[in-house]
């Protein structure tokens, strides 16, 4: 059965859980084409991702760890891998996941089981990026137990 990957809703789906994660560029800005993997967040194991926001400094100026947040997302893409090692999002433009430029909406997805530690961010352009800046992602998700109760009928 054909199923569109991105759901088109007139309204946004309610957010069950969210978790803010951070990717730091490091002491030197990675070169174009570099992939930055995510660290392991125990709370994001065994979850089904339902939506993602990528935030810049206009939404969150300083990360929870005290680092400055990137001001431009146009040279950054996001690749999300599911637990079957399939690329569910491949080189998705990060700027398209910023609600500031999506009229306040966030992108919601058909839920899939996220494998965060194999997912990564790709730097396509280093323009306006500086050392030690961070990229913030707000992950919307449901736990596996919640998914079993609410999502399974839809996913069959």
């Amino acid at each position, binding site marked *: 059965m054909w199923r569109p990957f991105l759901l088109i809703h007139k309204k*946004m*789906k*309610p*957010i*069950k859980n969210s978790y*803010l994660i951070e990717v730091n560029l490091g002491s030197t800005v990675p070169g174009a084409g570099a992939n930055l993997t995510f660290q392991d967040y125990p709370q994001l194991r065994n979850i089904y991702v339902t939506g993602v926001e990528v935030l810049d400094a206009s939404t969150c*100026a300083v990360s929870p760890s*005290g680092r400055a947040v990137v001001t431009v997302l146009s040279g950054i893409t996001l690749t999300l891998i599911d637990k079957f090692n399939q690329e569910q999002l491949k080189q998705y433009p990060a700027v398209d996941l910023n609600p500031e430029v999506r009229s306040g909406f966030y992108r919601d997805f058909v839920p899939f089981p996220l494998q965060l530690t194999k997912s990564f961010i790709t730097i396509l352009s280093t323009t306006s990026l500086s050392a030690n800046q961070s990229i913030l992602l707000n992950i919307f998700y449901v736990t596996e137990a919640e998914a079993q109760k609410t999502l399974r009928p839809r996913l069959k």
Partner: protein
Amino acid sequence: MEENLGNNLECIKALRVNVQLYEDVTLNNKPNFRYYFPETPELNGKNIVNIKFNAGASITGQDEAIGQVVIDLPSSIISENSQGIIQQPAGPQFGVGGVDLDKYLLLTIYNEKKQQVLSSYPCHDLAGYYRNSGGSLVTDSLGKIRPFDFKIDIRSSFVTTTSDISILTELPPIACFTFYYK
């Protein structure tokens, strides 16, 4: 709720809760300090469908007592058990000095099972129609109220700041949230 607000769950009631930041200015240099919500029994165990961060338009003046609940919403959706109206809105508290302070605030919420449901959620993303721009409050016609669906334990939930915001020492700043629930 109006259809164009971006939610697809209707609320029955709404409650406005304030969190006073920096009761002691010596705490000002400590980012990630937790400012807990006041005890608000009306919200405990309620199903939250929207949260709005009020960037200034509806925040009351400085003489408001810490922890009191302010209601200035349409009578059709206000809580019957609220503590009542303290006073009319008296202008922006956030945004003094030309800083968009909601960009330095994060919201963490626990549910009734003591599980974290929102972890460091950026308050600017909850600002809805009101945006701070260079110290002035502006309305954003494209703003959306974020839709949520969880039960809240308000006593365990808190607000954190991500940076030293020295400008806040000029006023006792208030972080004002509206919880829409059913």
